[in-house]
């Protein structure tokens, strides 16, 4: 059976369409970069000032002047461009990036996202996340459905400080895919091996189930 992470990454890959400009957040989203088929012809944007992120460099060919937003050494693809941070966020804030795939700590049923303050830990900063969630045309969040204590991260309301209000368009977990519209959340797909019942058990948020899955019914732990 596939791991949670690999289920999430596989499903996230389907979000990536030919010709898209995409920003991948730090952490799990970065893993997606290496899986995108070259023939899909997309351009990856890195908010530190690179459009056209390539694969990691070959050993010994690292360039300290060429890193991604996770501060990892990368390469640049043919057709890449470099720019300053204001121009980079002009691209993002101005709606020129088609898709951002970001990690999450909590997602609420109205589309609120919290992903920058880890409870009980020193605040490190929001980096570019707050700009991304308001800028990219489509925001897809990928995260595990529950935390290490088994508590649902898909919640009625976020308890952690928000990154953005009602900003998530789609949430992908190892169990399910949810869409957000007008402050409401709908279960639109089950991941392989997941059942409606398991999703119901592990989801605190209220959600609709799309007709394709089971007819429309009000779901959720309450």
């Amino acid at each position, binding site marked *: 059976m596939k791991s949670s992470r690999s289920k999430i990454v596989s499903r996230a890959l389907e979000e990536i369409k030919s010709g898209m400009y995409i920003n991948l957040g730090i952490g799990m989203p970065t893993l997606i970069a290496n899986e995108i088929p070259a023939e899909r012809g997309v351009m990856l944007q890195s908010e530190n000032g690179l459009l056209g992120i390539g694969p990691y460099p070959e*050993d010994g060919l690292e360039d300290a002047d060429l890193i991604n937003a996770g501060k990892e050494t990368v390469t640049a693809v043919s057709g890449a461009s470099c720019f300053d941070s204001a121009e980079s966020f002009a691209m993002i804030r101005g709606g020129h990036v088609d898709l951002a795939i970001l990690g999450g700590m909590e997602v609420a049923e109205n589309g609120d996202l919290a992903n920058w303050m880890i409870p009980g830990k020193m605040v490190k*900063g929001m980096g570019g996340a707050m700009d991304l969630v308001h800028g990219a045309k489509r925001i897809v969040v990928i995260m595990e459905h529950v935390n290490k204590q088994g508590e649902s991260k898909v919640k009625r309301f976020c308890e952690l400080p928000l990154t953005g209000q009602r900003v998530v368009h789609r949430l992908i977990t190892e169990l399910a895919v949810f869409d957000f519209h007008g402050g409401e959340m709908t279960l639109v797909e089950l991941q392989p091996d997941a059942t409606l019942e398991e999703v119901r058990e592990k989801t605190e948020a209220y959600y609709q189930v799309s007709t394709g899955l089971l007819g429309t019914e009000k779901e959720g732990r309450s």
Partner: protein
Amino acid sequence: MDKLARSAEEAIRNIPDGATIAVGGFGLCGIPENLIAALRDRGTSGLTIVSNNCGVDDWGLGLLLANRQIKKMVSSYVGENKTFEQQFLNGELEVELVPQGTLAERLRAGGAGIPGFYTPAGVGTPVAEGKETRTFDDRAYLLERGIKTDYALVKAWKADTCGNLVYRRTSRNFNPLAAAAGKVTIAEAEEIVDIGALDPDEIHTPGIFVQHVVLGRHYEKRVERRTTRSPKGENE
């Protein structure tokens, strides 16, 4: 119009205690390492630093932290640094966290004579506290202020002696913005070229934004996360 200083030491000599300084770089990429080292050696203290990050424990702006020269940081992400955490928890260090795009735009605005602008980043989050929220075309935005600083320290790849700068790859990042935001901007470069050697169309920071230029004595260019693939194309 010769702006060449003889050394990093000479270039930073007039920065007083308590100055506000914009510093270029993202992580450890494109940081003005020689100017930071000179500032550490001089011991200038009580500084307010506007920079996306604060280096690591033993490199970049982390050197100034370790030496207790920084009073306040204005940054978007400061997570790589234990000294930082200690000084913050002790109350020795103030921190203002700013979304990265807002920080970039605030520096650009400061350099461009724009005192304030509206951005959606941070609406409905702790970042919005104490700020005006305003609706344009049915969307909510925050009013953010431009940042001008007393000084700016930036790192270029090439510079000419009248202060024109060219950056390389992602080492550009916040450097052009810091250069424009500083009332006095000091640039270090890996190479100083003759006036006229740079094509007017390839210059990233025109010399008007730069008051002093210095050749960096040595570049360590430390890498924060060395990620590579094997020559067969597999990821590490």
